[in-house]
């Protein structure tokens, strides 16, 4: 009986895990750069309870700059020995938060590990680190079987910025349509018209909606006649997208075509034509809504 009680006592002791006050104590020490407390928090990233991991992570992100190099080294070591999905996710999240360039080789290696189910975080981190040496690996990430991984890879390219564009253009012509779709959207968000010829060439391809959107965002004046021509498309989604892009392009030449689109048979086209006319003319513009009444579009840009 006594042995059983002792066993229960110790089981409960370990099952309870670290108290919140203990984590707060470590966090407080870590904030001052105390390496022992930082090590404790890194150990807690391995704890099975995700709430404990979150608290440990929150403690680690507040360490002073002079403690970051050692913390990065310890975190990379953790990644080399622990293959638990959640632990790796938190460790990689931390490396991204610290913009740890020294972790890029190990991150590239992990990005290819299909057993790591939370590998989106690798691309989240690479986007924060913004190291050009990772560009090929990031573009490879656009072909990952998991959609969230592909999206984070795309965002990583956007975060790297204009310096990613030459490599993206080089790879664009070699890629399949799905991968091209991510590159097109990233081109759009980078708001740089270097790839406008590539985009105009694909205006009638499978990624047409994204190409139209991207041409608007990149400010491609060259694309204006092509876009205006697409206002005659049978596909109402193409016409909606063109009206939106013409607002983004902000070229006065588009005004008469948008006025014509106010009479489109599809209400969503009329609404977007009114919205873009407001951008171009600075005046509120009415359109005819579903009930046949004059209405003002709500402002999606406020």
């Amino acid at each position, binding site marked *: 009986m006594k042995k059983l009680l002792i066993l229960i006592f110790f089981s409960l002791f370990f099952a309870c895990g670290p108290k919140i006050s203990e984590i707060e104590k470590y966090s407080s020490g870590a904030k001052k750069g105390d390496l022992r407390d930082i090590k404790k928090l890194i150990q807690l990233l391995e704890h099975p309870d995700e709430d404990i991991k979150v608290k440990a992570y929150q403690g680690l992100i507040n360490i002073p700059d002079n403690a970051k190099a050692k913390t990065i080294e310890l975190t990379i070591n953790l990644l080399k020995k622990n293959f638990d999905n959640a632990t790796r996710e938190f460790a990689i999240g931390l490396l991204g938060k610290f913009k740890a360039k020294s972790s890029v080789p190990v991150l590239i290696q992990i990005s290819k590990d299909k057993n790591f*189910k939370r590998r989106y*975080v690798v691309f989240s*981190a690479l986007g924060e680190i913004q190291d050009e040496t990772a560009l090929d690996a990031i573009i490879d990430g656009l072909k990952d079987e998991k959609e*969230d991984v592909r999206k984070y890879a*795309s965002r990583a390219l*956007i975060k790297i910025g204009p310096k990613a564009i030459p490599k993206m253009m080089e790879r664009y012509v070699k890629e399949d349509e799905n991968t091209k779709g991510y590159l097109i959207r*990233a081109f759009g*968000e980078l708001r740089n018209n270097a790839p406008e010829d590539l985009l105009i060439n694909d205006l009638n391809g499978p990624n047409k909606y994204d190409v139209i959107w991207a041409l608007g965002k990149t400010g491609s004046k060259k694309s204006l006649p092509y876009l205006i021509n697409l206002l005659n498309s049978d596909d109402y989604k193409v016409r909606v997208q063109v009206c939106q892009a013409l607002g983004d392009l902000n070229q006065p030449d588009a005004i008469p075509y948008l006025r014509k689109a106010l009479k489109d048979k599809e209400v969503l086209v009329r609404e977007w034509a009114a919205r873009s006319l407001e951008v171009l003319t600075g005046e509120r513009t009415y359109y005819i809504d579903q009930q046949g009444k004059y209405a003002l579009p709500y402002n999606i840009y406020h």
Partner: protein
Amino acid sequence: MRKLLILLIPLFIITCNKKDQKSTITGTIYQAMPSFYVYIYKENMDLKGPAFAETISDKDGNFSIQLPPGKYFLVARMRSSGDIAGPLEVGDFKSEVIGPITIDEEGKIIKQDIKVFKKTGENKDIAILENKNQSKTGISGTIYDAEGKPVSGARVHVYDHVQMSERPKFVSSPTGPDGKYIIYLPKGGTYYLAARDKFGGPPKVGDLYGRYDKGTIEPSGVIVKDNEILKNIDITIHRVW
């Protein structure tokens, strides 16, 4: 000359410091219970949306917050769930909106006590949670986690503007174990979607959050036509790092 400099230097320091000086609003919440949140809103802000600043009262109901010059409104709220944001439910506590309280440039302490009362009557959410209006327009899909598993207890927030700031226009009921959601809308249009595990306020480090997009930083608009239930608008939520 030296004396003049000695005189001018402290004056310069005082003048420089004055720019950064903040005033303090302090007070007591009458219903002496701990953990009342006091939300501070600037003029023209949505008083039910994310606040400009917030503080929490101590065990005796006392609170204090430093603010830069401006006109402010105060509201105290305490949710029995302990959450910092989200719609108030029957049994939660709230105050009337107090203000405007004007803070001028001189650092001073403004005393403002707050009376709170218990919310009674029916729960009213900020959005259409049930299809009481028999709308035939809506969006449906599934919320997944980073490992591709359906998420239970997440809500979809629907915005009608691309920045997705302020209060969402509509919020879904929490997802069940299958992660599925459906949200009815009064009419078709262009909407922007986010899903999250917590209700209200900007997502914080450690929260689970995801927007509907196609791999862009800017969210992707979802175009819904009148009388259309758009399907398979799935969202994956991840930790905020």
